[in-house]
């Protein structure tokens, strides 16, 4: 590059005046183009590009406790509006969704609390979010019944985590539920580590009952051809990661296995790359594996998901407008098996 090429785009200082919409603020971030502001503005542009690209299937990978912390309705709205096409998440994310679907709540607390006293009151703490034990217990009790119903209906057939998630969504009648929204909107939900959550312990509760008639069977491997098939048939694939962990790895490995490579990627995390763990690994690193194309639009936003993602979603929704309706390319090649 020539010297003048490095100096072609000056920083424009932010100028804020009321009233100011979220996307107007994002334009100011783009004008700055620096540090977190620049990365967040780029993330919005990439998400908008994914949505406007008629060939792109959008995977949202969710880990961490963002559902109990307040992103439940936002994610279920994105699912219903088809502003994402495939949800890949931890079991715990959907456990917390189901907790609220059966009437439980999460509460605002503090990260400085007497945890020994919380234990004595049967209250669990997730940083500064509190969950009463009865929220879990009521879920356990209700879902152990639902597991029994599913097992009897499916007559011993092994379900993939996607089929399992839809069977739950079919029976959870809360319209704000992510599982319910996914079931109604034909959005597949993959839970690759489904056993590593309350869903696994509910299975123990259900299957160890003395008079159990049929035991629910979930096959961890059955979803692999399902998710790889989506990546393979989609002309392009985009990924938005909230956190990292198993969901991010599952999406990246599926695009790799289907020999596609990501065309778009946004990762929101606070993890670091130096440990070699996946959650903090840079997107550049994924190019070496073939998980992301070298020319893909991509950005990693280092920040709190609870702040970054709602701002990103609000900015992009504002650009699209209230009347915007997306026609997912996935509908051309993927049919639900309800």
């Amino acid at each position: 590059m020539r010297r003048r090429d490095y100096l072609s785009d000056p920083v424009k200082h932010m100028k804020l005046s009321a009233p100011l919409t979220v996307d107007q603020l994002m334009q100011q971030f783009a004008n700055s183009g620096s540090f977190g502001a620049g990365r967040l503005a780029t993330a919005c542009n990439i998400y908008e590009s994914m949505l406007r690209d008629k060939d792109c299937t959008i995977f949202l990978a969710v880990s961490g406790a963002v559902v109990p912390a307040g992103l439940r309705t936002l994610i279920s709205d994105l699912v219903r509006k088809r502003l994402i096409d495939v949800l890949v998440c931890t079991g715990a994310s959907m456990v917390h969704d189901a907790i609220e679907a059966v009437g439980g709540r999460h509460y605002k607390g503090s990260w400085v609390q007497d945890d020994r006293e919380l234990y004595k009151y049967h209250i669990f703490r997730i940083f500064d979010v509190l969950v009463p034990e009865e929220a879990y217990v009521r879920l356990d009790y209700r879902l152990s019944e639902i597991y029994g119903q599913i097992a009897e209906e499916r007559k011993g057939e092994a379900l993939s985590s996607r089929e399992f998630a839809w069977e739950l969504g079919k029976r959870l009648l809360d319209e704000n539920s992510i599982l319910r929204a996914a079931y109604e909107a034909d959005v597949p939900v993959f839970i690759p580590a489904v056993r590593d959550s309350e869903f696994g312990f509910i299975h123990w509760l259900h299957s160890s009952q003395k008079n159990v008639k049929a035991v629910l069977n979930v096959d961890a491997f059955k979803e692999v051809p399902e998710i790889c098939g989506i990546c393979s048939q989609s002309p392009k694939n985009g990924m938005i990661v909230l956190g990292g962990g198993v969901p991010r790895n599952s999406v990246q490995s599926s695009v790799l296995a289907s020999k596609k490579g990501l065309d778009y990627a946004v990762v929101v995390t606070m993890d670091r790359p130096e440990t070699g763990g996946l959650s903090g690994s840079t997107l550049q690193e994924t190019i070496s594996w073939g998980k992301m194309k070298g020319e893909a639009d991509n950005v990693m936003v280092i920040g709190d998901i609870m702040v970054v993602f709602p701002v990103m979603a609000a900015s992009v929704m504002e650009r699209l407008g209230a009347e915007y309706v997306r026609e997912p390319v996935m509908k051309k090649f993927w049919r639900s098996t309800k």
Partner: protein
Amino acid sequence: MKSKAELERFCGNCDSHNSYNYPTQVFCSTRHWQSQDPIVPTLWHCDQWNQVSQECYCVREAKKAQKHP
């Protein structure tokens, strides 16, 4: 922690209890495994009672609730 001999026996200090309708009702995992109704009063107990490993406030709070419903 009190010894097993000196502890008054209640579902609320049994190791099978989980909070269900705090503080008056608990979920008993033993009864659930046995396909019996698992929702029992905190201040009840049965012959399968086994001391909880870490004490909680269930019995204390259930007694308060009983006095001042």
